[in-house]
């Protein structure tokens, strides 16, 4: 097992290298530099700035320097906002995004599994229909529609929660409700559908019939025999779910004006702030890759048939 974990951890390295390299070069070969403003800078000034950020060196040198810095955990200075490090921005905004993401994914998993299981067990009853209708909404309606609509109904018309703001900035804790629900919706829907279908599949399997033939009660069969097997597809969906949460947070943070990493990301994309873009992508990738790693480990612990060769 330990060997397996170590091997998987080593497997992460090339992926991360590819990500860093790819985003570094995409950004560098792009037309339009960060210092292209409306008014042209005098040549001397431009050269000075480029020298300061080492933009005058050959691309390979820049790449090597950047890689070295990244390995030390230094994502470099921001191109746009003078005197600030990318690290500073990321550490300032990342906690907000993590809080939002963790709450959202918890909501999605908790409600998704519960309603999926209920739907499967009470197949073809109103419980089933209701939770599947909700799931279809979650799958069909993009979150940038769900977000504003929820905002319009619950914040503007009913005034139950604030329209926007963020609790770390001194606003009410209620500010987190709508963003978290919005962000959770799509993953809730997929998890609910996955849970339902894999639960139904499991309930039809031979070993559940065996358990029934033993005279076990239905609730025991579901929790002891069916649960583990039917959770496997759900666990393997968690990787894409994390990716979805990260992508979704970009929109949700924009809609609800949350000072998180996603909002920064969009801004820096518009600003062509090279180092900030690459920095944010690296942080996101590290999170994503490690989440996938953890999901893999959980999966292999759930399924005894997997061997750690």
């Amino acid at each position, binding site marked *: 097992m330990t060997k397996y974990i170590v091997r998987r951890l080593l497997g992460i390295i090339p992926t991360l290298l590819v990500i860093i390299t790819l985003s570094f070069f995409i950004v560098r070969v792009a037309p339009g530099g960060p210092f292209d403003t409306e008014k042209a800078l005098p040549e001397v000034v431009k050269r000075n700035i480029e020298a300061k950020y080492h933009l005058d060196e050959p691309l390979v040198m820049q790449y090597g320097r950047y890689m070295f810095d990244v390995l030390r955990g230094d994502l470099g200075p921001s191109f746009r906002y003078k005197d600030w490090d990318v690290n500073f921005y990321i550490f300032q905004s990342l906690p907000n995004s993590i809080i939002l993401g963790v709450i959202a994914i918890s909501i999605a998993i908790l409600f998704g599994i519960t309603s999926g299981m209920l739907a499967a067990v009470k197949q073809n009853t109103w419980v089933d229909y209701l939770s599947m209708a909700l799931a279809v909404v979650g799958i069909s309606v993009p979150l940038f529609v769900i977000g504003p609509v929820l905002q319009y109904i619950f914040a503007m018309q009913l005034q139950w929660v604030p329209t926007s703001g963020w609790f770390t900035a001194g606003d009410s804790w209620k500010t987190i409700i709508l963003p978290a629900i919005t962000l959770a919706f799509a993953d809730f829907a997929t998890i609910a559908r996955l849970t339902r279908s894999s639960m139904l599949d499991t309930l039809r399997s031979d070993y559940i*019939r065996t358990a*029934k033939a*033993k005279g076990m*009660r239905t609730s025991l069969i579901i929790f002891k025999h069916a649960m583990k097997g039917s959770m496997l597809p759900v666990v393997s969906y968690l990787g894409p779910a994390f990716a979805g949460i990260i992508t979704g947070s970009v929109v949700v943070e924009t809609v609800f004006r949350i000072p998180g990493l996603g909002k920064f990301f969009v801004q820096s994309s518009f600003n062509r702030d090279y180092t900030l873009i690459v920095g944010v992508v690296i942080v996101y990738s590290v999170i994503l890759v490690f989440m996938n790693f953890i999901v893999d480990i959980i999966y292999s612990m759930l399924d005894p*048939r997997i061997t750690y060769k």
Partner: protein
Amino acid sequence: MSKKTTKQFDNMLEVRDLKTHFLTDAGIVKAVDGISFDLKQGETLGIVGESGCGKSVTNLSIMRLIPSPPGKIVGGEIFFEGQDILKLSESELRHIRGNMISMIFQDPMTSLNPFLKISTQMIETICIHQDISKKAALEKSIDMLNLVGIPDAKSRIHNYPHQFSGGMRQRVMIAMALSCEAKILIADEPTTALDVTIQAQILELIQKLSRQLNTSVIIITHDLGVVAGMCDNVCVMYAGKIVEKAKTEDLYAHPAHPYTFGLIQSVPRLDKAKNGRLFSIEGQPPNVIDLPPCCPFHPRCEKAMDVCRTQYPPTKNLGEHHEVSCWLYTDDQERSNG
């Protein structure tokens, strides 16, 4: 709960006119259409037929394990020790399942839960029906595994199913089924998924243990060889109905129904292998959806008469416990009435 009724019944199990139908897109599938048979204490009954004739459905119906929807038991009675299983409540039914009647399924590969250790699965079986501690249940499980011939049972019991071979898994299934000393053991094609060499071992094991524990056994199979070696009585099923019912020796000596005759003929025999072709029954068993009233076997029957095409034959008693449903054994009067 764990106290078993000591009252003796002549028949452990009486199935009367059982009908199990499936509602499908194409129509109503009458998988089991009015069958009756008895099972005595200690008796071994074989149910034989081609695949799709309703053998397995019959036995799932006895346990009320028909997946519903689409399946439904639409009629008949199943008496176990005098009480009608079809009228029991869910909790009364649980008391019978696994405890009074237990089952071994066809495919040992999928019938054990791959996510739980063998020990967990065996202990829970015992603990559901008997009021003993987990430790005692573990002891008993190990004993049972030893009984079915699993080497090194004490340590192997903590393994997962995928760490066992097919034959070993079927042994585990048997151990599990017998661990509560059930009165009836239903074995649904217990050897179909196994190698030939293992088949004989498993069957022997079932036979030995059932004698030892005085368990009544129903064996479902399409293999007449299995029946000949093990069963006291045989029911031959065709298209959801029992076409012939007899003592095993009787059936082999004097097969009455043309279908039974064909079945027996088509068993490859070493002593006849050289002088001639293998016998086979021509054609396919019918699709049991919307079957018209006729003898379902008539298209494949060499002795078919006009009446076979319009009317299902009545059941005739040909002597001691030998019943057959075929127009051949009726007189002209009956045929013209039909």
